[in-house]
């Protein structure tokens, strides 16, 4: 079965005065229809830029300089802007990180939902409104027929994110890109939204790419997880396997820094150093300067090592070796 979304060798760079920021630097990713893929990485690892690249929404000075993004076999890099506009919202929807900022403050929810429907379908305003109310009901907004007349500031953060999700689901897109949609919410709301998303994706059969810095969240949600570091994927595999036995030292570091796994009262370990400046990455493995097990070999480009079917790691010295090869 061919992939719904296939990204190969994607490079999105920002040409700034200080130099070229390689936000996404050789990303390979495939998403199958109906699949939930988690992309995990620290701030600045390029995960948000990667999802904006798919929609062709990278703000200048950012630009896709190389690689290919195929959606249902159709090349999106360099595609006609009008074609991209028709795909956005209809085939590929996106949910943003900060629900307080995603809805236009001066327009009613109704206006924003109806226009989203009518951007892609010729329907009467009345029919569009009825559909919008239905969509709000589906994401669990009480009294949607009244609430649709409200302005965004009259909703709480969690409710606004539900509205954003309702908008994303309006056209039953084949692919939803969710850019840390629960990060700005408090933990109980986060759980609810995660649950709703899982349910809705299962109902509609949409594929979901869930970008997050939180490996625990991704593990509970995703079928497959990709760990991103400095603009590329360093480890990929089924969620439980990656969490149970991380192969890349960076994934290991991320897991060690999570509370819960460690003994109560024990100090959490942290990854030393900071995400490297994407302005001047060292040659070879970009994680090497922070890696506890780095060797001289890490100064050269690490190979992609397949560990198991569907599991690979980009490392000279993966923590998990090929089993029963």
């Amino acid at each position: 079965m061919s992939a719904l979304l296939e990204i190969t060798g994607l490079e999105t760079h920002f040409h700034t005065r200080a130099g070229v920021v390689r936000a996404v630097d050789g990303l390979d990713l495939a998403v199958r229809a109906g699949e939930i893929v988690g992309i995990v990485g620290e701030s600045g690892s390029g995960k948000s830029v990667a999802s904006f690249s798919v929609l062709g929404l990278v703000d200048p000075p950012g630009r896709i300089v190389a690689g290919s993004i195929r959606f249902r076999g159709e090349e999106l890099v360099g595609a006609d802007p009008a074609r991209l506009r028709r795909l956005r919202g209809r085939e590929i929807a996106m949910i943003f990180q900060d629900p307080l900022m995603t809805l236009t403050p001066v327009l009613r929810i109704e206006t924003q939902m109806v226009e989203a429907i009518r951007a892609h379908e010729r329907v009467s305003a009345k029919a569009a409104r009825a559909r919008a109310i239905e969509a709000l009901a589906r994401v669990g907004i009480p009294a949607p027929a009244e609430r649709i007349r409200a302005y965004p500031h009259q909703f709480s953060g969690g409710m606004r994110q539900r509205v954003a999700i309702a908008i994303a689901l309006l056209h039953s897109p084949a692919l939803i890109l969710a850019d840390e949609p629960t990060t700005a919410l408090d933990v109980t709301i986060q759980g609810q939204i995660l649950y709703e998303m899982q349910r809705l994706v299962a109902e509609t059969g949409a594929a979901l790419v869930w970008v997050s810095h939180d490996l625990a969240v991704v593990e509970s949600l995703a079928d497959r997880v990709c760990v991103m570091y400095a603009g590329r994927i360093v480890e990929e595999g089924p969620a439980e396997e990656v969490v149970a036995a991380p192969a890349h030292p960076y994934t290991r570091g991320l897991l060690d820094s999570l509370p819960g796994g460690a003994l109560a009262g024990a100090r959490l370990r942290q990854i030393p150093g900071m995400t490297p400046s994407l302005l001047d990455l060292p040659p070879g493995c970009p994680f090497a300067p922070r890696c506890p097990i780095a060797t001289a070999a890490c100064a050269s480009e690490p190979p992609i090592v397949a560990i198991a079917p569907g599991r690979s790691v980009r490392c000279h010295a993966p923590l998990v070796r090929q089993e029963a090869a």
Partner: protein
Amino acid sequence: MVLFIVRRALQAGLVLLAVSLVVFTGLYAVGDPADILLPDDATAAEREAAIVALGLDRPIWTQYGIFLANALQGDLGTSFVFNIPSITLIFQRMPATLELALCAMLIALVIGVPLGLYAGLKPGSRADSAIVTGSILGFSLPNFWQGLMLILVFSIFLGWLPSSGRGETGTILGIETSLATWDGIRHLILPATNLALFKVALMIRLTRAQVRETMPLDFVKFARAKGMGESRIVGLHVGKTIAAPIVTVLGMELGSVIAFAVITESIFAWPGMGKLIIDSINNLDRPVVAAYLLVVTFLFIVINLVVDVLYSLLDPRVRLGRRA
């Protein structure tokens, strides 16, 4: 809303009272009108009679009290110079100033906002630099100099437009205005442009800054991610967001243009309120100055009220009648 307007009206009354007090005291301190009004060879008896006739012999508090009591009945005093009620004098001149001010603001709006929008959408482009540079000229060249240059170029060199006066006026809806005749409009173009140049520059700057501030916001990106076309995003999402601050500034500027069109009116010999007030200050024509300032204060209050109401209509997060 009703509560809001009632409270505003009460506040307006207090403001007018305060302004009248300041104006009255200020004028009292400036000088004695009898010195200016009377011929140099007036006798002491003539002088005494004039002072009594003008009511200047009474203590200031009494004068103020009389002034206030009359003002409440709509009588803001009689001009020392013209010997007609000062309020009549002002209302005679007001249409000329209002049409000038409104035309200037209209020019600022229809030229400044689109240019600012365009520049803001394409920051760093050649058009942007050209527009911004133009707005710097609009800001920094002195208003009177701009006026003189307009006359020099369009009236003297090219001979296209008249340089002074109001031209032929007609009446539209019972108001006497230059806009009613072609001759009047020709007379209006140069002074209105002169008055508008600074405001155009201001509108360009303001709109450009607002657009540049709004475009990178998430909701613009989200609208794009919904598949909205750029024209609707700019026209509705961004347009409505930046409309509120633009309306606010427009309102404030309208007030200041009405009140302080003095320079333009002087250069173009425009028979508006600005010229009247300058003449009245020179002649120490107290009732006219006081009445003028009160009328202008009132205009500002009304404009501010309108702006507040518009603001609440444009930005739903602003609710009237609630204390900040």
